[in-house]
């Protein structure tokens, strides 16, 4: 044996480095889901559906076996929190792993999921299947929740607008004019009028309870943006120079006089709220109203029914259940009403091998029959009236349980979610910055002017860092009219 068989330190390091590089490369190559044909629904035994833990999920759980009876396909529903769902979906999509066959999608995730080809457009499925009855969906809802770049990428399972909830007994006692119930009556129903009413309600003594005029959401970043963006948009605030109309220009306009006025009004509302509202997330604000010490507030329409309970979905009636009503959202003087639309939708991951069964489920769960069944589940004092289909608002059975459906439908008709919270690709990064600064304005750390000036600077940094400013990519003229054309085309 010659000395050639001996190994020098350098040779060893070479071999080891080579092995390490191979290991590294192996790690770099993400497992790719096999592209291929989808199994026909008939051959599929079960599908996995990821849903977010929201009121609709509890109703869906109760009726999901009906789908299995009709289709022969079992549904494994898995519920996750908002953050957990988003993180899990992104991780699953990036790794190419097929984690679910149907996923719940927030409208703010549409651009990320569709542009990255993580979910597929539903256009072809809809066009090929008249049973979808696309024309029954409220166009404003589809525009706000479900379309991206001229495609329907999801369908709505729970659709929300924002409206006002108020104490009828207190309004009567104080002789205040009740918030209007129709758009036609709402000509004088401005935010100034609303603020005046809140001021009159604040500090009133009702049956030994001192009232707070209102309650707001203050927790950063998402809850406070959800509530404040409604007020800001009503005042005419827009996030960018031009979006969603083409050509897109993401130069921030967040520091506009309209937004400063809106944020100052929101601070006034916070000053008439319980101090601890600085930490309130969605349901904290809603359930505080049901405790009986709030005069009026505006929030997502699911709270029209959630506040019947004495806590968040407790199933026990609140003491104010007989003494509250709902009304239209105010508008800024001299401006058209603009309502924030949100909610949850179902989408189909591109990685699923069970596309036909997945579509069958999406169509069923967003269909008239299933939505009505969900609304008739009596648990938690009936916890679902978040319809995206116009026909359900005329259903006599549902109107008997949910007497506010006319108001809700009017609010939906004034909605445009893409103007209030623009679902551009890096929305969540901007929302984090925005929420942080609104929170600081509420806490008194910054004035509205300072808060929005800081937001503007950070928006620019984030947008430039993400190559969105100046915007050099493809735009799409994403208007309500273009959505209506899309609906007409797909509905045949």
């Amino acid at each position, binding site marked *: *044996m*010659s000395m050639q*068989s*001996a*190994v020098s330190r350098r040779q*060893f390091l070479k071999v*080891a480095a080579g*092995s*390490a590089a191979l*290991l*590294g490369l192996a*790690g770099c190559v993400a497992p790719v889901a096999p592209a291929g044909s989808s199994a026909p629904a008939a051959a599929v035994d079960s599908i996995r559906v990821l849903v977010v833990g929201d009121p609709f999920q509890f109703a869906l759980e109760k009726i999901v076996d009906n789908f299995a009876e009709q289709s022969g396909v079992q549904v494994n529903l898995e519920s996750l929190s908002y*953050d957990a769902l*988003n*993180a899990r979906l*992104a991780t699953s*999509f*990036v790794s190419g792993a097929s984690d679910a066959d149907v996923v719940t999608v927030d409208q703010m995730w549409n*651009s*990320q999921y569709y*542009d*990255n080809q*993580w979910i597929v457009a539903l256009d072809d499925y809809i066009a090929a299947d008249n049973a979808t009855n696309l024309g029954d969906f409220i166009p404003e809802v589809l525009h706000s929740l479900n379309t991206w770049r001229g495609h329907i990428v999801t369908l709505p399972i729970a659709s929300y607008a924002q409206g006002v909830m108020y104490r009828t007994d207190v309004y009567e006692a104080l002789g205040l004019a009740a918030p209007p119930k129709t758009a036609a009556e709402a000509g004088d129903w401005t935010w100034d009028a609303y603020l005046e009413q809140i001021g009159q309600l604040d500090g009133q003594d009702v049956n030994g309870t001192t009232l707070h005029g209102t309650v707001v959401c*203050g*927790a*950063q970043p998402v809850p406070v943006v959800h509530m404040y963006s409604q007020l800001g948009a009503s005042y005419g605030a827009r996030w960018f120079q031009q979006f969603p109309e083409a050509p897109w220009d993401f130069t921030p306009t967040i520091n506009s006089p309209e937004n400063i006025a809106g944020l100052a009004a929101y601070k006034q509302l916070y000053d008439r709220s*319980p*101090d*601890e509202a*600085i*930490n309130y997330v969605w349901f904290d604000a809603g359930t505080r109203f049901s405790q009986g010490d709030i005069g009026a507030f505006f929030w997502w329409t699911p709270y029209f029914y959630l506040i019947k309970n004495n806590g968040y979905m407790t199933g026990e009636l609140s003491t104010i259940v007989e003494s509250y009503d709902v009304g239209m959202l105010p508008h800024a003087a001299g401006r058209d009403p603009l309502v924030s639309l949100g909610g949850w939708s179902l989408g189909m991951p591109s990685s699923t091998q069970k596309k036909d069964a997945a579509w069958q489920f999406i169509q069923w769960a967003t269909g008239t029959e299933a939505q009505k069944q969900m609304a008739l589940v009596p648990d938690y004092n009936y916890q679902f009236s978040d319809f995206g289909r116009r026909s359900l608002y005329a259903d006599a059975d549902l109107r008997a349980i949910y007497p506010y459906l006319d108001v809700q439908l009017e609010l939906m008709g004034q909605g445009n979610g893409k103007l209030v919270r623009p679902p551009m*690709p*890096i*929305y*969540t*990064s901007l929302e*984090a*910055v925005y929420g*942080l600064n609104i*929170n*600081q304005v509420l*806490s008194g*750390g910054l004035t509205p002017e300072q808060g929005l000036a800081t937001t503007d600077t*950070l928006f620019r*940094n*984030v947008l430039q*860092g*993400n*190559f969105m400013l100046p915007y050099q990519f493809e735009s799409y003229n994403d208007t309500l009219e273009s959505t209506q054309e899309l609906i007409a085309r797909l509905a045949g």
Partner: protein
Amino acid sequence: MRRIAATRWQPYLFLLPSFLLLVLLIIYPTFFVVSNSVYFWNLQLSPVPLQFVGLKNFELVFTATPFVDALRNTLLLAGVGTLLEFWLGMGIALLLSINLRGNSLVRALLIMPVTLAPVVTGFLFRYMYYREGGFLTWLLLSVGIPVSERGLLGEESSALASVLVADIWQWTPYAAILLYAGLLSISDEVKEAARVDGAAGWRLFWHILLPLVRPTAAIFVMLRFMQLFNMFDLVLVLTRGGPGTASRTLAYNLYQEGLANYNIGIAAAMTVLIVLLVTLLINVYIRFAFKEWEW
């Protein structure tokens, strides 16, 4: 010759498993993070890195995220938290080392908070901090300490301290158990000899006991500092970094950028900065705390 060759191979073969483990667990992830820190990669825009941006992500860490606020809070949390947990733990350990009635029960109970998941601790304290009816709020009000209407977690001046109190409750027992074990390892002869020489009370503790438990104490301080530097769970459950940035930590900032905003490039740059900072701080600490040790 064959034997010579085999002998030459042997050390490397023995080293190979460790080397591969090192590559898999440390070198590859480090390389992955460092390489991503110089690329523009936002999962909201693309599933793959889009372009080389040099040090731009490092600049954005400071200009597009509240990194400085988070760093300040983290240093405060880690420094004050480690000190308080150490000294409170030492106090409990000294009490345990005196043979009092019920010590065995106390020792058994001490381990309980450590076994809880931090998320559970977070929820527990969240209820106790409630402005209306929360036990700790009630306690403070009962002894005449005012609590703002926003509650302890809602006030900028008390949010970070409230997170720290929850951590201290959970981890002081760990310090106590470790230091108690250290005190037990000191032989009675040493203590007796010190007493014969006139050392008692504070002098006995400062000049005899503390130097002898120093190895245990030094390890505890290092571990807890690093753990507190990575504080995430309690912040997520209790305050989500608020109000404003009052309780935002580096780990929470990282989570926000990486898993909420999906900006992998900026999150990677932030990770590099945090790793460098922790490594620097720990090495300085080691240089002083372990200077008399073989290292």
